[in-house]
């Protein structure tokens, strides 16, 4: 039996129907069509499915979709504003922080969760922010450098 579900995704009102026990990842990808959210493990282990639910990072693969009724969800597809990329996206490009790119949406959202609350993170803060996100090809150093750079850009307000 399908259950009606409403939430906001990147500022847009979404109304859909979900199966009992459906996880948020599958709903975002298959029902809503937001393919920026990637599925890696479906075990809450790899972090590539990270989205923000009411500003807090959540692993969408182990989040019951129905528990998100009435919430505001942010995914990587909502980062840019028109043609303007988010400072994190620009920094990831500048630092070559994506190779295969599969972990990138989750990394971006984990980083956004950090920078939304901490405009001047230390390297340790950044490492902690992405410690639940697995990258198996880029390597973590360019990703850490990109996030620190995006924070610097954010502080300059450019």
């Amino acid at each position, binding site marked *: 039996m399908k259950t009606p579900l409403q939430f906001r995704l990147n500022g847009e009102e979404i109304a859909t129907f979900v199966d009992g026990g459906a996880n948020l990842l599958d709903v975002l990808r298959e029902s809503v069509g937001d393919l920026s959210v990637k599925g890696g493990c479906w075990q*809450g282990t790899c972090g590539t499915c990270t989205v923000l639910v009411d500003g807090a990072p959540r692993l969408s693969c182990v989040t019951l979709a129905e528990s998100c009724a009435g919430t505001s969800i942010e995914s990587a597809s909502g980062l840019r504003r028109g043609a303007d990329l988010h400072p994190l996206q620009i920094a990831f490009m500048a630092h070559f922080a994506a190779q295969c790119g599969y972990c990138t949406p989750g990394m971006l959202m984990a980083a956004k969760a950090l920078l939304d609350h901490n405009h001047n993170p230390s390297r340790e803060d950044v490492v902690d922010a992405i410690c639940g996100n697995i990258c198996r090809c880029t390597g973590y150093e360019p990703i850490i450098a990109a996030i620190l750079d995006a924070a610097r850009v954010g502080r300059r307000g450019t």
Partner: protein
Amino acid sequence: MTITVKTFARLADAAAALSTERGARFLGGGTLVMRAVNETDPAIETIVRSTDPSLRHIAISSARVQLGAGLTMAALLAERELAFLHPVARVIGGPAVRTAATVGGNLFAQSPYGDFAAALLALDATTTLAGGFGQREVALEELLVRRDQGVSLVSSVAFRRPTTRTFRFVKVTRVHPKGVSVLSIAAQLPLMSGRVNGARIAYAAMGRTPVRARAAERALEGRPLDAATVAPAIAVAGEGTAPIDDAMASAWWRRQILPVHLRRLLLGDGQG
């Protein structure tokens, strides 16, 4: 298989549904139950949830701490009065896990998970169970023994607030800064006139559930915490444990390193 999701405003109603609905599992943050759902665990036919605010209630006095079972690790980290628990909550996964993983869920996490449960075991926590019978208290140690036999819904945990610097915790992992436990050790080490008085030590990932280190506790009793006097406790560190082999470590390796990390914890000379 079709799964039914039932959400209740009152915890008592959720507890009743857990005992009457077919194949019912209670959903806290989702890190355990949704993983099982994704793996199409046929035992799960009904997901029971509750929005009862009591599940997220924190009550702290000078003597006692009570934590709603639905509190997340992130919520604990936001509470300054619970600073002694922050080293434990901080190592339960990354930020996206900590916003979901709950106190209650950790009590039911299979080895090698359950670091927070080990901390609560060292703190001599009691659990409050909600059920058709109303509410009743059960020692965490007793709950852990029979947790896989189907128990009632845990609504909260409570323990005596530890005095300054008596509570210690270390998590040993192969992946840094954070990874799944090779093992973790929690210890409450009250001192009276410089000697241990009423030690409680608990391990995670050293058995099917978090376990007390009773032999080590006995060996410490009445002794000061120095290199010579902790030696008897270190010698019996592994008594009563039955660690598992998994991708993190073999049972053999866990037995080998347990005394090393227990010694460091007792002497306060480094983290695992």
